[in-house]
């Protein structure tokens, strides 16, 4: 297993609460109606290519990428397009989407739905990238950046390491953990495929030490894969952040404002590696994913393989219903997830978990004056001073916020988690980031 590594700056260690860690992945029954928002990736939303009344099969293309940073969307179900309408998404706003009435489960013929493991990789790098692009893959860890873009380093940049993110540093979430235990073989083949696409000879799978079973399992399997090694990591949030993971595994620092490729690294999530296996070896587009349903009051914390478009109500019902004193529903983990406004929100490509919080856990503590304890500065993994940035944002001193590098904030929430005065630091930092970002874009236009 080697020595435990971690990143150098800051970090916190919230209660892990991995309640669903021992629950094997269950296949969730099909929904009656699939709700498919068109904006499922970071970047431009996709463009619908079906219309009301069209018959669709599972895996059929229903929306196309509308630009470079955009992805295809395939029908996760078979049935009839009920309508194209605004649907509620994870942001709480109504945005364009496709609603499909489900009828049976008829798959597109080109998809290999057998269980046979295909080890041999026959496609060349370009063919792999094309397939990944066609299948509509995005980063499955929650950032939803189109995967194929990361496989094409800009001219002059060379990838040296592929780093597979199996950290799952968010409390509660266990979907990556279960995937590593149950689909380890596939995930490793997917890693091999990604290595081929990038032309790298070394891949490191980073896993935090609170998942010893996954570390052992993947280490044993990885012996058959040349160039892939497993790195056990000390439990420390936000180790799953790209920059922190690169620092922890290969001790390189991505320069401020730059991408990981600058230091010769490409980071992909274990869920993405698995999806790459399915897309390249089985020709299966991204139409389902593993979602944890968890929370202290949840009767049956579980991990479900759910089709994209399944309303989360159905996932919660499968876990024996919404606990009575639920006060907040979080899409994702408690540190970076988004609070949802409704149970009609569907599973999307970036959903890693549904966290149900009890009423008493749901509201923030009362804010009190900053006592300048500097704990926010100590825990910031980017070496920023959240107390100062929040004050700058509050007073609309955006020039100070920019000079003090507010744009480097990765929004991990460690500062706010730590603050003894319960100041909503990250709220102010987000405000600062959006204002400074707009100012910078304006300046670039001139």
């Amino acid at each position: 297993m080697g020595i435990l590594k971690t990143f150098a700056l800051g970090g916190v260690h919230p209660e892990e609460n991995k309640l669903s860690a021992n629950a094997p992945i269950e296949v969730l029954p099909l929904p009656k109606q699939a709700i498919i928002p068109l904006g499922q990736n970071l970047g431009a939303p996709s463009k619908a290519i079906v219309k009301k009344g069209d018959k669709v099969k599972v895996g059929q293309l229903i929306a196309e990428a509308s630009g470079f940073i955009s992805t295809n969307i395939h029908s996760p179900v078979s049935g009839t397009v009920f309508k194209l309408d605004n649907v509620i998404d994870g942001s709480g706003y109504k945005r364009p989407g496709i609603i499909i009435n489900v009828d049976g489960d008829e798959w597109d013929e080109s998809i290999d739905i057998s269980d046979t493991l295909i080890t041999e990789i026959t496609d060349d790098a370009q063919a792999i990238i094309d397939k990944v692009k066609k299948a509509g893959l995005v980063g499955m860890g929650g950032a939803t950046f189109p995967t194929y873009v990361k496989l094409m380093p800009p001219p002059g940049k060379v990838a040296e390491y592929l780093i597979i993110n199996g950290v799952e540093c968010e409390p509660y979430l266990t979907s990556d953990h279960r995937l590593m235990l149950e689909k380890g073989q596939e995930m490793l083949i997917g890693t091999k495929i990604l290595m081929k696409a990038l032309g790298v000879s070394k891949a490191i799978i980073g896993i935090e030490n609170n998942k010893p079973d996954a570390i052992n399992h993947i280490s044993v399997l990885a012996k058959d894969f040349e160039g892939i090694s497993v790195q056990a990591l000390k439990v420390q949030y936000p180790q799953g952040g790209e920059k922190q993971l690169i620092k922890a595994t290969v001790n390189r620092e991505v320069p401020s404002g730059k991408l990981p490729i600058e230091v010769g690294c490409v980071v992909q999530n274990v869920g993405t590696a698995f999806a790459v296996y399915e897309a390249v070896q089985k020709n299966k587009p991204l139409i389902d994913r593993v979602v944890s349903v968890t929370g202290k009051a949840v009767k049956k914390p579980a991990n479900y393989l759910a089709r994209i478009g399944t309303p989360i109500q159905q996932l919660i019902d499968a876990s024996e219903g919404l606990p009575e004193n639920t006060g907040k529903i979080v899409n994702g983990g408690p540190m970076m997830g988004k609070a949802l406004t409704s149970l009609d929100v569907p599973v999307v490509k970036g959903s890693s978990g549904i966290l149900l919080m009890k009423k008493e856990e749901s509201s923030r503590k009362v804010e009190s004056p900053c006592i300048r304890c500097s704990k926010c500065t100590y825990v910031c993994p980017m070496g920023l001073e959240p107390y100062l940035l929040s004050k700058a944002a509050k007073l609309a001193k955006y020039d100070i916020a920019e000079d003090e590098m507010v744009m480097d904030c990765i929004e991990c929430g460690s500062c706010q988690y730590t603050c003894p005065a319960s100041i909503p630091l990250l709220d102010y930092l987000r405000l600062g980031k959006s204002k400074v970002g707009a100012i910078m874009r304006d300046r670039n236009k001139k």
Partner: protein
Amino acid sequence: MNMFTVSGSPHVHGDDSTKKIMYGVVYAMIPAILVSVYFFGLDAIRVLVLSVIGCLFFEWVIQKYLIKGGTTINDGSALVTGILLAFNVPSNLPSWMIIIGALVAIGMAKMSFGGLGKNIFNPALVARVFLLISFPVQMTSWPKPKAITEGLADVVTGPTPLGIVKEGLDAGKTMSELKPQIPTYMQDLMGQMGGSMGEVSALALILGGIYMLVKKIITWHIPVSMLGTVVIFSGILWGFNPEHYADPVFHLLTGGMLLGAIFMATDMVSCPMTKRGQLVYGFGIGLLTILIRIWGAYPEGVSFAILFMNAVVPLINKAFKPKRFGAKPGVAINQ
């Protein structure tokens, strides 16, 4: 219909709070409180009670009737100031002077800057220096520590070890001639030396410091850089002429050095925000303390040194930023 709370992430909070930190400091002061009561008896209790009640009262009155806002006397910060103020005065200080000290600490040093978290200077130290300058005689007549078990006889006052050394050296005596007059290091550790109520026992203060380090209320940076600077600077002088300069251990154990390094300089509100800045700040306090002790007019310089460095904190905060991630692009350092 279900109504759900919607707010930005993070959705969980660690269990730290201002109150926890303040009461953590209070717990850390318990050993020193016990020692002061042991040596100074009922007088110590009088000073402590008056100082604490005074600070809480002025905080409450000012917030309620002058600022006309909510009161925060429960957060523990005025309690900490009250105890620290008591630690910083002789146990025989007249009661009315203690009340004035509390008014200066809370009213002048804390509330006039905007209350908790906004004061530039350490409130208890401002009060100490205010009292020292206004009432120099009462503030420098130090009762000799006498175990409570020896009965409640009349209080005998005497100079502090620092005072003995300062006066002696100024009068042309050598350190070896002064040696019999000053307490041994063991007596310094246990608290058998003249001084302010809270500063007499080095051991009790160190215990409190260890507790605060373990509870992560303070970090090592300020005490270590401050005391390290004191040791190095006074050590160099002592190395030159041991007859004319006191040794580093004497400087560490006497006066307000440990009280200052552990409880006063580490005050969150008035110290720098980054660890680098804190090292510079500690260095400055150590250097100034020795300068004042050796060449200044007062035998003791910790309070002045801390207050002076308090004033420099905004500049330190500007000059010493944390190590930013990715500031120095590190390609292939190892592996």
